[in-house]
């Protein structure tokens, strides 16, 4: 019988990503409800030393697949490695990150393991010993509760939504050798985004600008506030399509879905396709000079005024606060 709550840890450039701890903590919580063990799956090259960090957040066992062919990440190699660990151990639940890499990997695993998955979940619970996964559908216009009849029951977790809770466990390392078959894809180049900024999907605070920013040069006022708050700067499609901001910054239905603690929309009207990308943020602030802008219906705090006056004042206030 399938048993155990497993998760796939995500690392890049030799370090675990924050979402890995969200996964560990969530797996721990579910496993405690089921009276099961947590197994972490860690794939990469020279990654064994990271196992202890996963133990800190609740992993009873850490399955380490260490192989030079697993660095950098490719779909084929990682899917083979994870699928092998899953087949050998038959967990009842398998959690992945709904990050760029995690979405790619988890979908390939669904194919390899011939199972079902709930993508980009915002809540998970156990009912009658089975997983109930809650996830936004139709761009967050409704939510679905998903039940999976096959094992492992797979779910990918929206980053930044699930809490990180320390809970030290043994984290016994189990080394796994996987004979990787022929790999048909290869990373030939990694082009780093300029400035080493934080990605909008990973930031605790996102400050986005829309058409109301009037031009690319004006984003400097958002960048200044963002730098103080450790925030990422996002954009509406209008700002991206105008060529003011790169595609990677676009928030919304055809952009990225973000879930920060704080989302500040500046000069963004709040079109339904934009809301699709940010409505699961914990706090939403709207700064817009049009009191009728639909964004105010989603905002926890609204400021009806000229953003070019309000944002620099906010920056001053934050500077005062931080001393």
């Amino acid at each position, binding site marked *: 019988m399938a048993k155990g709550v497993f998760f796939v840890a995500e690392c890049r450039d030799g370090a675990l990503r924050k979402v890995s701890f969200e996964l560990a903590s969530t797996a721990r919580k579910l496993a405690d409800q089921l009276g099961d063990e947590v197994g972490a799956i860690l794939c990469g090259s020279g990654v064994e030393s990271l196992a202890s960090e996963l133990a800190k957040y609740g992993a009873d066992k850490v399955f380490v697949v260490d192989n030079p062919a697993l660095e950098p990440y490719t779909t084929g190699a990682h899917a083979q490695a994870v699928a092998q660990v899953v087949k050998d151990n038959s967990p009842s639940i398998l959690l992945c990150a709904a990050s760029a890499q995690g979405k790619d990997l988890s979908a*390939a695993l669904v194919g390899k393991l011939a199972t079902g998955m709930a993508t980009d979940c915002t809540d998970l619970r156990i009912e009658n010993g089975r997983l*109930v996964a809650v996830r936004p559908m139709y761009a967050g216009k*409704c*939510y679905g509760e998903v039940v999976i009849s096959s094992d492992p029951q797979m779910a990918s977790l929206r980053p930044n939504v699930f809490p990180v809770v320390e809970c030290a466990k043994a984290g016994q390392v189990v080394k796994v050798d996987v004979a990787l078959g022929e790999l048909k894809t290869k990373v030939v180049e990694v082009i780093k985004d300029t400035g080493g900024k934080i990605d909008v999907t*990973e930031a605790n605070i996102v400050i986005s600008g829309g058409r109301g920013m009037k031009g690319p040069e004006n984003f400097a006022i958002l960048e200044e506030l963002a730098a103080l708050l450790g925030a990422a700067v996002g954009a509406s499609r209008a700002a991206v399509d105008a060529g003011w901001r790169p595609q990677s910054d676009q928030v919304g239905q055809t952009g990225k879905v973000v879930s920060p603690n704080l989302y500040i929309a500046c000069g963004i009207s709040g079109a339904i396709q934009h809301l699709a990308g940010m409505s699961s943020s914990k*706090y939403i602030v709207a700064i817009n000079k049009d009191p009728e802008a639909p964004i105010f219906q989603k905002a926890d*705090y609204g400021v009806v005024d*000229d953003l070019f006056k309000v944002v620099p*004042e906010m920056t001053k206030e934050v500077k005062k606060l931080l001393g």
Partner: protein
Amino acid sequence: MNIIACVKQVPDTEAQIKVKADGSGIDEGGIKWVMNPYDEFGVEEALRLKEKFGGEVTIVCLGPARAMETIRTALAMGADKGIHIDDPALYEADSYATAEALAAAIKGLPYDIIFCGQRAIDDDSGQVGSILAELLGIPVVTMVTKLEVEGNSAKATRPIEGAQLVISTSLPCVITATKGLNEPRYASLPGIMKAKKKPVDIKNAAALGVSGASKAKVVKFVPPPARPPGKIICADDTPEGKAAELVKLLREEAKVI
């Protein structure tokens, strides 16, 4: 070059989505149905490859009778023929069962590249392309924003957090398309006229040898969690006053900065 583009018919992005009172699904009344926006990028890229290398573009779509309209839209854009998988047994198919049906329809065809969207904007699941690749035993590159085909291989660019990866893949492969790949064309009037005469094969589950049995089921649809009503910050009605009040609330009430 033989190219396949999978397209799904979905509610228009503007559509209001209402959950049925018993939570069994969404109320489809009044919805305008369109081609999944990410599939438009796939169809467009398929047409550009055909224009460059010659060959044929085949559209594959699983959906009820109304989905024929979406197939015709793709044919009007310039695709050559279509396969319409239409069977009530498959309407509720999950990602895996959907991919099985698509794979069964594609298996006998010649193909060099199969395009899917990176996700369908109704179920937002983002799985079908990758499962399809697995079922066909070919590689997949997801979320592709740039594609260059040379001979028997292709180079695809895909974003990850903070970087772009350039990935080389052998052909045949599945590519899942995302915004940035291209600007999809509109169907021209002559295109729309021609599309009416292009062949579309209709297939059911039995003909494909699939059952549609699903592993992942949405057992309940619920409206999004309600947000508490917001506060409009008036302060002393100056930008300075409002900014100060906002920063104070974010610090002391919301505790997010």
